[in-house]
């Protein structure tokens, strides 16, 4: 079923919430509405589902205007799953899902075999069969979310509106729900979802619409629409947009806004640059943060060392996740090393992606300021076919200091600076 939204306006208590929304969707399409909190995503969904009536403009299901249809007629082709569910009494999960058949039942009708079949299928799809006889009120937020998705599926709709379908779900179920969404779209359902997770939108939606202060900022394919500029404008957030080489979809990572809340270091003994990644820098960063001003590079925002360094207030040289180190990042990194009093190379696994961090260290003029933590283990951490091992040996040979523990490292550094 196609949806056409034409010049939709909606205001609440005189203040406009949605303005000039024009959007159309085709059968089998998944469209994600993203936008900051309060941008009108939920209100837009409610206008489309007929819960709210627009002040101007109209919503059409195929060629029929939704305000001309009765709730029962609407419920046979369109349904919506809300974000929050407050169930009044302790119905069982199955009883709740069975209500999805109400649009097809008469007032005194009993459940038919076809009803039972649809209910069973919906329960299996949403993975709720295992707790079908439990009370809805005992369930966790995520379980409830899946039960209501199952109820919507039992309704056998042609259009499905989802408001934050992954809000309460852990990562496993987020993916399951998104998989169901894609399967249902492939089966011909038109799916419109409001979602705050830009990466899920990028990965699973055919098209993305960015809603900003009640207007559509941009609509189109995720790769075209989810740009740093658009996201900055809509969310006032600095992000890095890269490409996830595994899923081949755009990937959005946040960049910390300069935090003024963190206190400056009491007294800096000197500047240190740390080469780490994949968690290998955690112990070193913690040990040195209270005495030195630190810089870290090159790490991606998806790296746990990135997040820790950020929390500790270290300067960061970054690169988009899953991308090789660009010449820009390489230069920035080298500059950070040169302006430091010392460089620490942690027990980091090296692959082709982060190998340039070692090459950069090798470019430094005075190698005696380089500290290498337990270089003897490098062969086990070398995923470059010997290249990283070679570089480490070169560094040691040209005067880099070998340390065997973090204690040894800190005593070295403290005695020196």
């Amino acid at each position: 079923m196609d949806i056409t939204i034409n010049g939709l306006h909606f205001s609440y208590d005189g203040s406009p919430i949605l303005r000039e929304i024009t959007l159309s969707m085709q059968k089998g399409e998944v469209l994600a509405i993203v936008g900051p909190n309060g941008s009108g995503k939920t209100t837009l969904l409610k206008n489309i589902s007929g819960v709210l009536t627009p002040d101007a403009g109209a919503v059409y299901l195929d060629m029929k205007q939704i305000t001309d249809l009765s709730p029962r007629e609407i419920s046979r082709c369109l349904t919506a799953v809300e974000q929050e569910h407050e169930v009044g009494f302790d119905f069982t999960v199955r009883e709740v899902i069975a209500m999805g058949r109400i649009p097809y039942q008469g007032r005194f009708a009993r459940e038919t075999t076809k009803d039972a079949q649809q209910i069973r299928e919906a329960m299996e799809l949403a993975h709720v069969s295992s707790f079908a006889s439990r009370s809805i009120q005992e369930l966790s937020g995520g379980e409830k979310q899946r039960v209501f998705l199952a109820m919507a599926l039992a309704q056998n709709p042609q259009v499905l509106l989802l408001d934050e379908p992954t809000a309460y779900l852990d990562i496993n179920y987020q993916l399951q729900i998104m998989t169901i969404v894609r399967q249902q779209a492939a089966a011909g359902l038109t799916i419109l979802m409001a979602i705050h997770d830009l990466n899920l939108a990028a990965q699973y939606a055919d098209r993305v619409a960015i809603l900003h202060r009640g207007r559509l900022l941009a609509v189109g394919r995720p790769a075209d629409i989810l740009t740093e500029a658009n996201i900055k404008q809509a969310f006032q957030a600095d992000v890095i947009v890269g490409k996830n080489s595994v899923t081949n979809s755009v990937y959005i990572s946040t960049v910390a806004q300069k935090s003024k809340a963190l206190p400056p270091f009491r007294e800096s003994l000197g500047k240190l640059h740390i080469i780490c990644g994949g968690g290998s820098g955690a112990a070193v960063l913690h040990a040195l943060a209270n005495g030195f001003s630190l810089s870290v590079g090159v790490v991606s925002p998806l790296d746990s060392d990135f997040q820790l360094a950020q929390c500790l207030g270290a300067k960061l040289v970054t690169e988009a996740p899953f991308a090789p180190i660009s010449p820009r990042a390489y230069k920035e990194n080298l500059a950070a090393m040169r302006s430091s009093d010392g460089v620490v190379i942690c027990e980091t696994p090296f692959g082709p992606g982060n190998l340039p961090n070692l090459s950069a260290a090798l470019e430094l003029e005075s190698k005696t300021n380089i500290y290498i933590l337990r270089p003897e283990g490098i062969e086990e951490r070398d995923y470059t076919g010997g290249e990283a091992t070679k570089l480490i040996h070169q560094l040691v040979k040209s005067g880099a200091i070998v340390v065997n523990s973090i204690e040894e490292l800190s005593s070295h550094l403290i005695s020196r600076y």
Partner: protein
Amino acid sequence: MNQKRTYSRRLVFIVLLVLTVPTLLAGVIIGPVHIPISDTLSYLIGRGASVGGSPSVSRLIISQIRLPRVLLGLLVGWALAISGGTMQGVFRNPLASPYILGIASGASTGAALVILMNLHGVLFLPLGAFVGGSLAVGIVYRLAQERGKKTSVYTLILAGVAVGAFFSAVTSFGIFLSSGTERMTDLIFWIMGGLGRANWTYLCVLFPIVTFGSLVVIAFSRDLNALAMGEESAFHLGINPETSKRVMLSVVTLLTSSVVAFAGTIGFVGLIIPHIMRLIIGPDHRFLLPATAIAGAIFLVLADIAARTVVRPAELPVGIITAFLGAPFFLYLLKTKKMRI
């Protein structure tokens, strides 16, 4: 289908229906004047009463006093319980009762005015009560509506309390004005509530109203189920929440007002019976409402038997019995169950 649940549902209905028969019999047999069981049975079966010392008196007591009273008890208990179950469904709140929107106070005032104005005729009483009850609900509903938008449950309940208090004051004022007259006794009846005025004319008026109201409410029980999921979810299931709520509130107003007209305000039946039945049969209103109705009928007849016998030969208002049993049970539920308002 969940086999266990259907089986126990059927069992609940069988037990309830089986309990109705002895309850009815007990209601007719027990009373201040001793009437042998054989007399009662032979009257009920329709055989001529020729056994015993003064058959005509026995017959008269049974046919003009006890049987109408038991049947009124059944109808009133039925109507109050099904109204309470409906209100709890509409407000998605197990603390709701048929009186929550000030219906009882409004209906009492209406009935009191009919008496004060000396209007005779059996239809005036329920008519006055219905007008009063509808007026109260209408005012409450109007107050709670926010500029043509959705009706807020909290405002409804608060407005119900206020409007109820106002109408109670009007009734009390009526009692004050009529103090010392015969009418005062009649008016106090509405404050107390009871089945003592039962007669066949009342039953002929009340029976069709209760039948009609119950059928409508049961026909809308599916809507109550959907409403329990939240009003928006109900809309997505093809139900117009506002229409359903209005239909059900109107029917409850009709049922409750008519009951008040003939039996005054009897508390707790409409509050605790739906609650207990929900624990037994589950929250599905298609089964809950009929089961609640039968249970309410049985409960009120039993409570009335107690009211007639506890301080024999005097008689307690049945509302004292229902409150005496209901209030502690309600507190128990409040204490043990998490009840959200």
